[in-house]
């Protein structure tokens, strides 16, 4: 029987580039491949994704497999699961990594069940056990209150990877790698779903995932108007505004502003947390921030356990004075 070998990273693209989490997985994958003494490869699936193969190589892949098919232009569960099943059976990777993204959350579980293997979702650490050579998969559980280490003896050993949990490698444009095309072999009848429409809400200004400064508001902001004040501070500091879940659920702000376990993962230099309690599910999305500042009227709020600086007080009084002082300091 052929052997499962090497580390494979499922690549995703955003705005004409390999996505940041793809680069991070190539970084982590390289390390795992080295520990196994095996190769790192990328798999790119889409309508026409050949153009990204060399970029995957520049980021450390020894090989890049490419599957192009008009049926794969947009992500659809049936199409991608079928194609990835074929790819895995042909290439037989020992480890398969996908991003914990809108696609990865949908594709990885179904693919794992199809292949009869296990998958650990939303991993923040991956390592090779020196003895068994199995993949040790560390993932937060209980909303981030705990972490669990899983492993499996089934192949491929699959995991999805949380954004910003691992570091991207240095890009080396001169790296050489093999680029291999695989036929999709997909019949239209295999795809039971149909995409009727795709709606993208345009983000004005700086994206949360890329922002160096984030001003985040919680339930205590009280209404949509309150968030206007947060926007003012964010603008001054060239940052973005984020939120916990309640402001999104209450329609004070768009759903896409949600930060956390089931929202966006951010890692700014400065995270100003205003009138939010610091629930573990929220902190899952921002614990990578270098400096957390908390403004909360409850001295017992969990956010003070996570923050570097804090003020116990009513944000409606604290924030305007803070904003005013920041203006003065910036003008000076």
């Amino acid at each position, binding site marked *: 029987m052929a052997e499962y070998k090497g580390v494979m990273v499922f690549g995703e693209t955003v705005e004409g580039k390999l996505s940041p989490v793809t680069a991070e997985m190539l970084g982590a994958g390289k390390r795992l491949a080295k520990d196994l003494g095996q190769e790192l490869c990328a798999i790119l699936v889409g309508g026409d994704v050949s153009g990204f193969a060399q970029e995957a190589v520049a980021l450390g892949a020894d090989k890049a497999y490419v599957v192009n098919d008009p049926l794969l232009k947009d992500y659809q569960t049936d199409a991608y699961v079928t194609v990835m099943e074929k790819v895995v059976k042909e290439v037989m990777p020992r480890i398969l990594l996908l991003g914990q*993204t809108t696609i990865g959350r949908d594709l990885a579980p179904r693919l794992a069940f199809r292949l009869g293997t296990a998958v650990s979702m939303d991993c923040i650490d991956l390592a090779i056990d020196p003895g068994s050579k199995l993949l040790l998969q560390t993932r937060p559980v209980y909303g981030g209150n*705990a972490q669990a280490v899983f492993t499996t003896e089934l192949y491929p050993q699959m995991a999805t990877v949380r954004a910003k949990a691992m570091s991207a490698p240095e890009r080396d444009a001169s790296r050489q790698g093999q680029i291999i095309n695989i036929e999709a072999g997909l019949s239209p009848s295999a795809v039971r779903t149909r995409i009727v429409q795709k709606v993208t809400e345009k983000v004005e200004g700086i994206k949360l995932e890329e922002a160096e400064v984030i001003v985040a508001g919680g339930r205590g902001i009280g209404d949509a108007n309150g968030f206007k004040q947060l926007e003012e501070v964010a603008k001054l500091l060239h940052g973005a505004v984020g939120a916990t879940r309640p402001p999104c659920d209450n329609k004070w702000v768009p759903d896409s502003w949600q930060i956390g376990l089931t929202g966006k993962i951010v890692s700014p230099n400065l995270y100003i947390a205003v009138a939010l309690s610091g629930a573990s599910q929220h902190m899952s999305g921002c614990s990578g921030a270098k400096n957390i500042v908390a403004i909360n009227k409850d001295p017992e709020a969990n956010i*003070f356990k996570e923050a570097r600086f804090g003020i116990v007080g009513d944000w409606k009084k604290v924030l305007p004075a803070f904003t005013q002082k920041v203006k003065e300091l910036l003008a000076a």
Partner: protein
Amino acid sequence: MNMIVCIKQVPDPEAPPASFKIDPATNKVIPPKGVSPVISPFDENAVEAALKIKDAQGGKITAISLGHNLLRDVVKKPLSMGADELVLLEDEAFAEGDSWTTAYALAMAIKKIGSYDLIFCGRQAADWDSGLVGLGIAEILGLPSVTLARKITPGNGKVTVERVTADGYEVIETPLPAVITVSNELGEPRYPTIKGIMAAKKKEPIAWKPADLGMETAKIGPAGQHAKLMKLFQPVRESKCELIQADTPEESGAKLALRLKEAKIL
């Protein structure tokens, strides 16, 4: 429209983080005293999704829960919200399973129920946060699936689903029967009515054991595990918050700006 909703009993995920404790020797969570378990919140959204459809076009809703030590007051909540039946897969043998054994048992129960158009799950259970079981059920039963739903409209043998994406949503159409996993963007679940609570009290859940489902023993509990839990631990957080104090909140706000400047963060 015959609908099935999978609901999981979990420790209250909104309990204060400070109350969360695990026993590292047994890899088990020590339930906080005085905090009752709940239905995983996304599963309540899933119940709400089914109720919305029942409101609009009628139908029957069967809730299924697998576990052991299921509290009747907790797992009967879907009934008090308006679901019609409750099936409990409650057995010691199901303990220490994983997402694979859970999906298999639920799929077998769904097969036994027999007639279904829509199967709802939560996007992820609020304890282990995996988001595997719904897609596992779909794969085992060979059904199409749509995840992260925020709006679900069935009609003409099909269902149209709005699926939440990172920066918006997409509208997906799929034939029935189908599995749909529901996200909180669907909207707040309704509160049980007094009438609903009374009706739920009287309703006897249907109890099925592994043998009733014709399950292979190799696929139940620890024997059926695909993933092995090696270790469960609480990450250590260093907490050293520097509190900015002043006579008035306004002064402390201004002082914070100065302190951030001094620390070269601004």
